[in-house]
């Protein structure tokens, strides 16, 4: 028995060796077919036989925009070809994964996409290449791009990022329930949180709704975004916390509003359970799809009283990138007018390149941009703090705010701690 086993093992090992060695010649034989055809060679004899490969670390795109973007770049570029490395869709995990690679000074990613709140940390750690030279070379100004996104990527006087797609929080309301007079007031942005609370109480129960207002108040990053809005960009921390507590305790919000994330919010609003909701633009896409109780034509948009938190994704260059010139070319392509137009028309993302906000093709694909209430919201964006230890600060803000809102802590202690953290 043992003998049979040992013979079997030997045979397997020999086989493994043979196939292991054999695989090399096959890959070599494949390579020539990838080389450009002779006719192309004749056209550009000086061009290198192989384009340099660049890598782009990015989350999967549920639309076709990313694929088309990469294809357009690969077609137009003489020197480079880009490959995407699809990262996990869990932002927290993606952050840790990127950090792991960047902290080991690895050049495995040339261009990286980041959540807006990571730039301060990555820039402070020296992982990103400043892009001011690139802006100057392209003749672009900082003001050509989405202001909130650029502000999230400015650290110690240097710009480190360009917008991939901006995102912002704003108010959704049921236009079939709210009176046109109130709707006008909301869209203009000239109202207070107290006005919103009063309206939520007034309309709650109408049109089959159960709640007046829903937003994100679970202990996670979404709470920081919402608190940023309630406190008008941290100008009135104590007042903002108090108003948020009024909403929590009132009966216009669900009893378990303190576990609400984006998922619970869009479920409540799109299933017709709530009159108002604070969420990101993606919820409009869901309403417009017609798959939910609430349809696109029943939804109106308005700025929030304290301004809308900027979210979304930004792009930067790895300071240890193997090919910085190529990375710059690719970055300029996706963040510039060509790439942003593909992103806005194919993927219906908000363009980060401001000139496209009035582009006819883009407007045709982004009904939101032609809406007055949304345009007002877009003009009133606020950023979260840009600091090196953002996740530490955010974590403590979440804990302190949630402790107070859940009745486990005091207002003064929460307000003092949060104000102290932001200094």
């Amino acid at each position: 028995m043992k003998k049979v086993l040992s013979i079997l093992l030997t045979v397997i090992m020999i086989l493994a060796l043979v196939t292991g060695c054999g695989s090399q010649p096959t890959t070599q034989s494949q390579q020539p077919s990838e080389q450009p055809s002779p006719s192309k060679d004749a056209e550009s004899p000086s061009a290198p036989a192989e384009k340099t490969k660049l890598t782009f670390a990015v989350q999967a795109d549920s639309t076709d925009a990313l694929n088309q973007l990469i294809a357009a770049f690969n077609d137009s570029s003489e020197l480079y070809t880009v490959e995407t490395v699809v990262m996990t869709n869990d932002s927290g995990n993606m952050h840790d994964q990127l950090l792991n690679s960047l902290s080991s000074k690895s050049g495995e990613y040339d261009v990286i996409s980041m959540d807006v709140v990571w730039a301060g940390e990555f820039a402070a750690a020296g992982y990103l290449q400043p892009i001011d030279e690139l802006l100057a070379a392209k003749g672009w100004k900082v003001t050509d791009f989405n202001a909130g996104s650029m502000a999230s990527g400015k650290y110690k006087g240097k710009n480190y990022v360009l917008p991939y797609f901006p995102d912002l929080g704003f108010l959704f309301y049921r236009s079939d329930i709210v009176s046109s007079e109130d709707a006008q007031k909301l869209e203009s942005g000239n109202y207070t949180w107290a006005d919103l609370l009063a309206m939520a109480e007034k309309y709650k129960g109408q049109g089959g709704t159960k709640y007046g207002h829903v937003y994100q108040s679970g202990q996670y990053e979404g709470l920081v975004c919402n608190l940023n809005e309630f406190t008008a960009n941290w100008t009135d921390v104590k007042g903002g916390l108090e108003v948020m507590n009024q909403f929590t305790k009132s009966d216009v919000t669900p009893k378990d509003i303190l576990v609400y994330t984006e998922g619970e919010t869009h479920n409540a609003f799109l299933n017709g359970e709530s009159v108002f909701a604070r969420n990101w633009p993606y919820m409009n896409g869901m309403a417009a799809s017609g798959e939910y109780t609430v349809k696109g034509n029943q939804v109106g948009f308005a700025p929030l009283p304290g301004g809308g938190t900027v979210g979304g994704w930004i792009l930067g260059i790895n300071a240890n990138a193997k090919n910085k010139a190529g990375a710059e070319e690719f970055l300029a392509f996706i963040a510039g007018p060509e790439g942003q137009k593909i992103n806005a028309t194919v993927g219906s993302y908000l363009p980060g390149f401001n000139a496209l906000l009035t582009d006819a093709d883009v407007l045709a694909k982004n009904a939101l941009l032609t809406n007055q209430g949304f345009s007002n919201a877009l003009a009133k964006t606020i950023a979260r703090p840009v600091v090196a230890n953002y996740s530490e600060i955010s974590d403590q803000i979440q804990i302190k705010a949630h402790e107070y809102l859940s009745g486990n802590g005091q207002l003064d202690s929460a307000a003092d701690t949060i104000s102290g953290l932001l200094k």
Partner: protein
Amino acid sequence: MKNISKIVESKTAYILILPAVVFILLFSIIPIGESLRYAFFDFQLNDQAKSGLYINANYNIALYDETAFYIRSFLDMEEEVVTKDETKLQIDAIRNMLDEYDQYMLNNISSPDMASVVSVNNEKLAYVTKIRDNIMSSLEKLYSFDEPFVCEEDMFAVASELDTAIISSNFSGLNNFKSVLTDTRVHSTVGFTLIFTFISVFFELCFGMALALIMNKALKGRGIIRTVSLIPWAIPTAVAALIWSYLYNGSSGIISHLFAWLKIIPEPTELLLSSTGSLWAIILADVWKTTPYMALLLLAGLQTIPHSLYESSSLDGATKLQQFGSVTLPLLKPSIFVALLFRTLDAFRVFDLIYVLTGGGPGGTTESVSIYAYKVMFAQTRFGYGSAVVLVMALTVGLITFAYIKLLNVKLIND
């Protein structure tokens, strides 16, 4: 020849344990040693001056180059808007200064392999510090002129990087351990973890014992009972925690509504949104999940008790309860000890259940030490401090083990 074979024979044992020693070195001793080393440094990734273990002073020459480039381009921008001659003279003076310093860097600091961080001696350290001070003071002089400057704020922000470029030693000795001991968050997480550990292990022991006694009886369908009771333990913790979070959910969870109906809790939302509610919610989920494991360990012990002891004790007229107290418990003591030790150490390191169920909420009241250590190390990248937290945690686990050995008076290794 004989000698050689003798040596080989006498050393055979060592040769045979060599692979195990190498294995332990590679996967246990070296990582622990490395972690210990981190704990003695103020090592954090989100600060260029601290993102390494620096015993000697270093200089980040790449950052100097970048900063000099930015200062020059800001100077160009200012030159276009200023009007007075003395301002222009000052701008030129700063430019000349930078040229001189560039030359100094090239001659004295740059290393042949173009490394971005270079170690510097005291004399060079004094010089780069002087460079920082000179540039700062001449910039201050420049901006004291009354001119329509355009990038004053950015200029000073950029120039502050000259300070970041100077990397002094971040060896901090025992400071990390000191701050761990005074960190209120460590106190609250250790407190929570201890409460969680003792309550849940206590219930697991009680229920586990009952379950083990049932499984040990020769009942009909014993195989099925053993299999079924092990199911909770076989489900991956993250999945089980997710299911429990649906059951506890304040608006649609069955358990939360049941408890509210039974008046155990005032509101269905109480289970996940109050600190005591979520503590008990976590304990319940943990007891449900690990009781079978406890029962399995105890069952193994029960089966080693010879049946003859029960026979002789019943001949002496002992009741079932007396048998349990005088025969089962004393003979089961080593098994109970092992089971308690395993479960306590395991419960003290609890991570996945809480991470999925409450994420440490509400307001950080259910944060375990592991979750805090994870946040410090991976989300906030403070490796030095995180290592110290983990080492203190390891020490606490050691203390608990020691206490068990003393309390239960069990010999861990029989001589």
